[in-house]
């Protein structure tokens, strides 16, 4: 196999792409289920265990071992299917997808082929005020593979000095959700792709079927992108960009492929039908397997498993366990929180809806929850290039920090330091406050002495306040806060000043 050339291809300006071409997307999302055990054996699924510590003869594909379907995974698959508006098959089978790869213990993956558990659904998204209907082709069950690490210069299998494989992930239940071709998104294609994946993430979380941590690989997206000249109805040749593992990357990868394919087509060239690899660091895609090199997976029904035939009664019962549909959920929160439309859209756009909801549930006001997640925490997420929900702080901790502010134990300035501490893993907000000595001085005698000194040092101001000009108190408050190095509750300082000067 020849090594891909290291040259970076030409890109067409995004606006020019849109002037000439119409993008068509297809998204394949893999969701790792959060079942306690694997798809076909009893091994635990916990993330981050020592390599090859969660394996057995079955998930290692030892000769003679046989799979047994995890009923809980089927249940999750049905609930996902129902939440996506799909029909649930009355009868479906597993199939073997045959190909050789060192991280596949059996050199076939147990998946579903032409008989998936869920078909024909639809989800509705709102992007920049426009509504998009995304057709769902199918959702099917399969098992995850092991994880290879290629040690050597390139980090890829070709050119690696050696490779090591961790089979802990082998056999973890996956649901693959495949869209129908997504058309009519135009300039918003990258955002629609991102919004779709974000929507699935929120949905899976609401269903409580997956941890959906993209950075841990429990939600992975393959993005198919093709362009066709404006006005054309036939699809262009597509590329499939594999393993795009953050929301931001989904958007970037789609946009990149549009510009790359646009440049090729505009120059009279052709798009190669191939898989491509997304490079998070450089923001480009590079070629993988071409259509000619594509494997023939030799699918056939898995003879070691019996068909799955969920009874209608069970499916109906599972239907009653679904969370509120996302649109209805948003409507309810919008009405409850009292945000302006703009404020509310910003919350959704930042992917903070569920975080704000959880923070409010933990006791914070909607305004305070919004303030922290869209302000301080969004800034930090951006700095460290992670998703908001990947920050190592929980909604409950955010609510706790706000409660400390409300109780006058810290102020907003100190709260930022508490965020630093919590994000740095120093413990709970209370612990960070204690360890870093961040509590505002609420000892009235110390504060009172500072207030007295400020009044003494500013007799003119004090006189104005005595005369009823309460607004002048600001200057004295500033002086006190300065003396206390910010570790005081400004509200309490104000109270003390007014009390001492006999003003209301």
């Amino acid at each position, binding site marked *: 196999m020849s090594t891909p050339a290291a040259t970076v291809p030409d890109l067409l300006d995004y606006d020019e792409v849109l002037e000439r071409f119409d993008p068509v997307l297809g998204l394949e999302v893999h969701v790792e289920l959060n079942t306690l055990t694997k798809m076909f054996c009893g091994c635990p699924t916990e993330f981050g265990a020592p390599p090859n510590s969660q394996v057995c*003869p079955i998930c*290692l*594909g*030892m*000769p*003679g*071992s*046989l*799979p*047994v*379907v995890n009923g809980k995974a089927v249940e999750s698959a049905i609930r996902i299917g129902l939440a996506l508006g799909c029909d649930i098959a009355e009868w479906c089978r597993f199939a*073997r997808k*045959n190909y*050789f790869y*060192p991280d596949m*213990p*059996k*050199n*076939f993956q147990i998946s579903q082929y032409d008989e998936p558990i869920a078909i024909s659904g639809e989800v509705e998204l709102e992007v920049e005020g426009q509504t998009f209907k995304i057709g769902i082709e199918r959702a099917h069950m399969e098992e995850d593979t092991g994880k290879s690490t290629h040690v050597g210069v390139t980090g890829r*299998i*070709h050119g690696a000095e*050696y*490779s090591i*494989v961790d089979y802990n992930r082998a056999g973890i239940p996956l649901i693959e959700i495949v869209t129908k071709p997504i058309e009519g998104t135009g300039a918003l294609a990258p955002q629609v792709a991102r919004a779709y994946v974000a929507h699935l993430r929120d949905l899976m979380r609401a269903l409580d079927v997956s941890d959906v941590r993209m950075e841990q690989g429990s939600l992975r997206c393959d993005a198919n992108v093709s362009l066709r000249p404006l006005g054309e109805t036939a699809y262009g040749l597509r590329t499939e960009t594999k393993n795009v593992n953050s929301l931001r990357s989904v958007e970037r990868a789609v946009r990149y492929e549009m510009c790359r394919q646009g440049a090729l087509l505009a120059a009279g060239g052709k798009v190669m039908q191939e898989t491509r690899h997304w490079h998070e660091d450089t923001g480009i895609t590079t070629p993988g397997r071409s259509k000619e090199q594509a494997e*023939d997976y*030799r*699918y*056939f029904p898995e*003879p*070691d*498993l*019996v068909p799955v035939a969920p009874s209608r009664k069970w499916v109906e019962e599972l239907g009653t366990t679904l969370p509120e549909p996302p649109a209805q959920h948003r409507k309810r929160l919008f009405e409850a929180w009292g945000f302006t439309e703009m404020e509310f859209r910003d919350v959704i756009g930042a992917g903070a809806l569920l975080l704000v909801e959880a923070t409010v549930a933990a006791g914070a006001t909607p305004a305070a929850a919004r303030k922290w997640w869209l302000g301080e925490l969004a800034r930090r997420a951006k700095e460290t290039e992670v998703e908001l929900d990947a920050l190592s702080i929980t909604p409950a901790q955010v609510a706790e920090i706000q409660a400390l502010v409300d109780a006058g134990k810290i102020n907003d300035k100190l709260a930022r330091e508490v965020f630093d501490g919590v994000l740095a893993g120093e413990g709970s907000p209370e612990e960070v406050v204690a360890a870093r000595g961040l509590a505002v001085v609420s000892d009235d005698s110390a504060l009172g002495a500072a207030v007295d000194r400020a009044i003494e040092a500013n007799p003119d101001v004090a006189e104005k306040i005595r005369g009823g000009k309460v607004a002048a108190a600001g200057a004295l408050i500033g002086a006190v806060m300065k003396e206390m190095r910010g570790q005081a509750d400004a509200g309490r300082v104000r109270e003390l000043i007014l009390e001492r000067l006999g003003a209301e």
Partner: protein
Amino acid sequence: MTDLTKLTAAETARLIRDGEVSAVDVAQAHFDRIAKVDDRIHAFLHLDTEGALGAARRVDEKRAAGEELGPLAGVPLALKDVLAMKDVPTTCGSKILEGWRPPYDATVVQRLRDADLVILGKTNMDEFAMGSSTENSAYGPTRNPWDTDRIPGGSGGGSAASVAAYQAPLAIGTDTGGSIRQPAAVTGTVGVKPTYGGVSRYGLVAFSSSLDQVGPCARTVLDAALLHSVIAGHDPFDSTSIDQPVPPVVEAARAADVRGLRVGVVKELGGEGFQPGVEQRFNEAVALLTELGAEVVEVSCPHFVYGLPAYYLIAPSECSSNLARFDAMRYGLRVGDDGIRSAEEVMSLTREAGFGAEVKRRIMIGAYALSSGYYEAYYGQAQKVRTLITRDFARAFEQVDVLVSPTTPTTAFRIGERVDDPLAMYKADLCTIPSNLAGNASASFPCGLSPDDGLPVGLHVMAPVMADDRLYRVGAALEAASVQRWGHPLLEEAPEL
């Protein structure tokens, strides 16, 4: 003193229970017999002397402690090398698994241990159970105790030969297209393929998952039934295992009664290509059943003749996938790992060196039959034939209780005779394959020696799904009447080794 190796399993167990012999002595007698004859038979690939004597000792201790012993406690058994046995080499007759010691027990092995059977060792077989002569073993052929120039059948030639050569009273075989029944027929022993799903496949290294079934090999029908009832029953680790009570096989073997049983002779399984001596003994067995009170009629199963080609698409297709895991990455043979070659190259070199010609042939046929564009024409069509054969059985079982045919068209052929003619080799399974495709129960019972060559002939009995007990009714009745007629069990006519 009694020759402990000549006893039946039932007698051996009784003597051990009664304290007349120790299980250790019984095991040792069999190891001595193996040491005496196995250089000529080559039934065993591996002996687990230590494990077996340990198990035997535990049986003796249990008895000494007054504990109740099961119906086969202390009885030695030979295990086909296709079943995983913890820490004991399991090769499937292939070089590619040389040195592999499974980290777990097959469910069948677990049940044998729980029932206190003494597993002597692992028996020879065609590589990955692909073959009808045991000549495809990477470790050399097994020889037929009736004539050591002839094949003992296959793939389970080692298991059948070990029983016929008194190296073990019982053996475990597996049957994908006839691998228990055809060796039983050509060695003059009893071999039963239970209903698909009747015995757990967990730990059976798969050749063709939808066809493979584990079953008993023995010298008597009752012994086979006793072993059958030990290994059968639902297993949650095998999704295809049937969650129903085990058919009353032991009771059926004890009853040995075919009065009123409706027996159908399959019209299509006979005639051209069948050795006259085989047909003669078969017809005599059918006549004997009539004498014993069975009602015999002729039945047509028109699609059985398509069984062979359908089988040779389905089995290779499944095997091409099942055998993909042998890639040098996790266990077994590894060839060419010089730190320079890629994983892909090491996989390919290992598979090239580790698999024999027949295995490669079937992997290639299977990979081709499943490939895109050919799937419907090959695998799809074969599955349709399978449905038609299943319907033939269903229709036949509306008229009769069991079906019968010769087990094999010919007696044991000579070693080397068919190695260059795969089609001739495949025809050995003509009569046995339909039951694998339909998943019903069937068995082979000795019905005499062919007058043209003096070699054993088997009567093939087929019963509906989960009606395995009917096989034993027929087998036991035939056995009792035949032994009476011959004056002794058939095997006593085999030459001394």
